[in-house]
């Protein structure tokens, strides 16, 4: 009896909250659009939220949403291996019937049926960062990871004088950014720099500690190693920590990183890291929300929106166009 009353109270409270919430959001946008009393809502399903990269994407999305006067939510699984958890979030987002969905696929196949379901529910879908093998999404805002990896290889080759042994500490041998950043680097070295030999590729899951231990083992096993390339923030900082812990002289091993974050920027300033590739995560967030907004308004967004990538080092870090895409 008692518990039944409690359920009833909660139900009434929940209904009241929904009602009030509905009024509140209605009143926000009621003024400009006479016929359209409902605030537009775009649900973004990311690959994660814990890395600084995703926080920067979220920031870009929120900035553009504020400018367009739409509501966005941003969520993603706790780690980039949780494909199943991500699909549940996508399912829940579809059930909420948003005006559009922005999606970054952890697995390019597993998402196909859910995107078909979104299409059936007449919810337009745009993608960011990593695509799904489906014809449903209207556009994708992302970095050309292979070209970015190749740019890292060009700079590595320039810094070590075009010859010698290099190693790679990767962050994933499965997800598309990990694979493409590695392949872009490896293919460019093979094609353009015959005197550079890639002696080892190992994976530390982007875990700083694991990546540091991997880098130390590589340096121990290859005394002539001239360069190390880390394919994301955690991998790159792992290499920086390894060099510090071994007390190697600056420049003994040339370190090339990926993405930004406070630690990498500090390492570049102090000279432990030669430079890194940065993407434009804020741009990815902005363009995703813009594409979703255009799709809602009946415009067709561009199929592939290349948000760009840049090499940055101690020399150009403070230049306005580079500083704008770096994030702490």
């Amino acid at each position, binding site marked *: 009896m008692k518990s039944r009353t409690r359920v009833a109270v909660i139900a009434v409270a929940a209904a009241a909250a929904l009602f009030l919430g509905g009024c509140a959001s209605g009143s926000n946008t009621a003024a400009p659009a006479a016929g359209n009393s409902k605030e537009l809502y775009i649900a973004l399903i990311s690959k994660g939220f814990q*890395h600084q990269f995703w926080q920067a994407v979220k920031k870009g999305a929120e900035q553009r949403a504020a400018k367009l006067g739409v509501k966005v939510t941003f969520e993603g699984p706790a780690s980039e291996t949780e494909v199943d958890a991500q699909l549940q979030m996508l399912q829940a987002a579809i059930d909420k019937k948003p005006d559009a969905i922005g999606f970054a696929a952890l697995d390019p196949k597993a998402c196909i049926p859910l995107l078909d379901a979104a299409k059936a529910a007449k919810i337009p879908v745009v993608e960011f960062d990593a695509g799904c093998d489906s014809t449903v999404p209207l556009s994708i805002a992302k970095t050309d990871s292979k070209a970015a990896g190749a740019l890292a290889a060009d700079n590595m080759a320039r810094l070590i004088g075009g010859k010698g042994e290099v190693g790679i500490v990767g962050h994933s041998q499965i997800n598309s950014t990990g694979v493409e950043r590695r392949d872009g680097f490896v293919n460019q070295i093979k094609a353009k720099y015959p005197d550079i030999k890639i002696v080892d590729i190992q994976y530390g899951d982007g875990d700083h*500690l694991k990546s540091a231990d991997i880098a130390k083992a590589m340096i*121990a*096993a290859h005394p002539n190693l001239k360069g190390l390339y880390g394919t994301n923030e955690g991998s790159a900082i792992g290499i920086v920590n390894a060099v510090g812990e*071994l007390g190697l002289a600056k420049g003994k091993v040339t370190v090339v990183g990926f993405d930004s974050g406070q630690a990498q920027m500090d390492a570049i300033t102090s000279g432990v890291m030669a430079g890194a590739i940065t993407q434009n995560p804020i741009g990815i967030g902005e363009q995703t929300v813009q594409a979703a907004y255009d799709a809602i308004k009946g415009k067709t967004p561009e199929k592939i929106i290349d948000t760009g990538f840049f090499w940055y080092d101690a020399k150009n870090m403070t230049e306005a166009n580079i500083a704008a895409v770096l994030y702490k």
Partner: protein
Amino acid sequence: MNASTVDTRAPKIVDPETKKTRSVSNFLQAKLQQSLAFATLVVLLIFFSFANTAFFTWSNISGILLSTAVIGILALGTTFVIITGGIDLSIGTGMTLAAVMTGIFLVNMDLPLIVGVLGGIATGGLMGFISGFNIAVLKLPPFIATLAMMLIAQGLALVISGVRPIYFTSVPDFKQIALGTAIPGLPNAVLILFGLAFIAYLVLSKTILGRYTFALGSNEEATRLSGVDTRRWKIMVYTFSGLFTGIAGVVIASRLDSAQPQLGSGYELQAIAAVIIGGTSLLGGRGSILGTLIGALIMSVLINGLRIMSIQTEWQNVVVGAVILVAVFSDSLRRRKAIF
């Protein structure tokens, strides 16, 4: 009425004769398991030394010892919990929460180094206390209680840090805790690991907490009936283990010179694996600190050796998994023989 006097003494769980024979066979079993684990470690060291000349260099050996520190410290603490027949899944993310709290104390609140470090360690102790209370008083199964704590710690680490790493650049001495070299060429984190192992050994073998840890794992009901306040001692064991989680949090933050709020998940399983390889029984009642230390070293020697040999990451996991299987299987085989 005289429960309080009984309370401070060791429980008489078995009659003197069987107790004697059991403790002798326990002793032999523990020694056998330890010497087998030790032999495995030596074989691995010899094998990798021949497989690659880069392996047996001081720089690499010191690297192996440093990479053992964090998992090793977690494993030392959780050895106590496992000997009571319990399990603690929260030590990985708990370590991360302790690291984040250390960052909050030292960087955001600008407290003195020693206060921040003790605060980080206390965070671990508090989490252990709460888990212990939930298990001993609210009677939740350890697996569930600590699974919940694992999620709570992971979430809190993210919330408190604002999903951003906390850098210790404003506290230059902090890095010295793990990476300073009181003994040249050997990072302090290694000394901390061995120092804690010695303390854990003394507590487990020479104090009443150690004795009750074994008693709880051998036969909790009998221990309770003999007048021991088992609830209180169980809470003590989880709290004590939590302190090690806190220390591991300080050490990992010091080594990375930052508190990384997304790390930690999965570390608990590596620590538990080290404990099991070292011959501590998941069923409780049996285990040793020396075994855990050797188990943790086996794990890191194995992983380092495979990396030096450039074995693919995927295969490294397969090999470590296989070693755990063999260790547990050989242990259960011997135990069956010992019973019959």
